[in-house]
């Protein structure tokens, strides 16, 4: 053992120096290389993850916006169609109303004119009646003035003609 140590030149002081050297290198690698590097890698990972999250969020929002857009468009279209249909319906109603009113007015006018005609007819009848009465009166007067004995058919005819002619 002694010769082994001597032949290989083992010296605990040199050995300790080498251990010290290793510890220095261990410190350098741990604190100057590995830890800062791990930190920067972790930071990078975080940033990339954040980017990916944001991207995902953005695409999700885009889909939402797209569906919202199509929904809104559809709604607007529906509303427009509804509006048009309503307007059409209202126009039709209005039309029907107007037509009905016109019809009513027509009916009324017709009725009125018929009434007027009837009235006029009545009036003329009345007039005719009164005229006929006065005519008859005149006939009677004329007849009275003539000798009642001589009253015959021919005479009556002559008188009537006279009255009618005088009219």
């Amino acid at each position, binding site marked *: 053992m002694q010769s082994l140590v001597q032949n290989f030149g083992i010296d605990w002081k040199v*050995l300790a*120096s080498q251990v010290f050297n*290793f510890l220095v290198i261990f410190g350098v*690698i741990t604190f100057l290389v590995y830890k800062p590097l791990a930190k920067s890698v972790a930071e*990078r990972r975080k940033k990339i993850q954040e980017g990916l999250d944001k991207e995902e969020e953005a695409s999700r929002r885009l889909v939402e916006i797209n569906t919202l857009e199509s929904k809104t468009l559809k709604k607007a279209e529906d509303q427009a169609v509804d509006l048009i249909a309503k307007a059409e319906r209202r126009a039709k109603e209005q039309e029907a109303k107007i037509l009905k009113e016109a019809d009513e007015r027509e009916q009324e006018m017709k009725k009125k004119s018929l009434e007027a005609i009837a009235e006029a007819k009545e009036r003329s009848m009345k007039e005719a009646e009164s005229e006929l009465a006065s005519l008859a009166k005149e006939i009677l007067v004329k007849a009275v003035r003539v000798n009642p004995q001589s009253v015959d058919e021919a005479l009556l005819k002559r008188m009537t003609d006279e009255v009618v002619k005088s009219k």
Partner: protein
Amino acid sequence: MGIGDEISLKAEHLFSIGGFPVTNTLLLSFAAVIVFVVFGLIFRNKIKVFPGKFQSFFEWILEEITNLMESVLGNRALAENYLPLVASLFFFVLVSNWLGLLPGLSSVGLREGGIIVPFFRSPASDLNFTLALAIVSVIATNIIAVKSLGIKLHLKRFFNFKNPITFFVGILEIISEFAKIISFSFRLFGNVFAGEVLLITIGALIPYFVPMPFLVMELFVGFIQAFIFAMLTIVFIAAATALEEGHEELQKVEK
């Protein structure tokens, strides 16, 4: 003066600082430390959330090591926890091996009686370095095991008086801890020292062009040895912490 005179198992002693001897392997080890410190300081200030090529490259390396550790440990969080230790072992061995291969490094030194004693020598070609790392690795493994299992459960692995079999298994475990240190240190030392000897020998025989493939091979060996050292540490950590499940199952069976 033969080739053998230039080859020495021991690292050459150069000078002393405050009673601490400084050998040429220790000097290169210091150089590696300086390389790491300078690199670390520059790197730290260059770290950005959105990395350039430089940062991406090191992130990739650490990521690969973490993946490898995860495949052994079976847990990402654990792999990240032990990454600094394993990466330090790997890069320290790798950088010191490759620094030791720098051409012309061994030709700069003091001339002592016709032999050049180089200022720098590959740290792993000195048993002090490999033994230091092996001790660090084994102690770290034990600390990690204590942290994840608790001191009681961890000690039970070495001192178990339930029956004679577990008692002897405990003794074997104690021996294996020391065997680990020996195998760690001699594997690395043997490979790197052999590489040094190979390069010196080839260089002395045919100085031009011929050593180049060997140099490339030594680069590869330097990487492989660093990799093996780190990998074995991961495996030992996995073995020391995975014991938990076995113990739990054992306790369930006992109940």
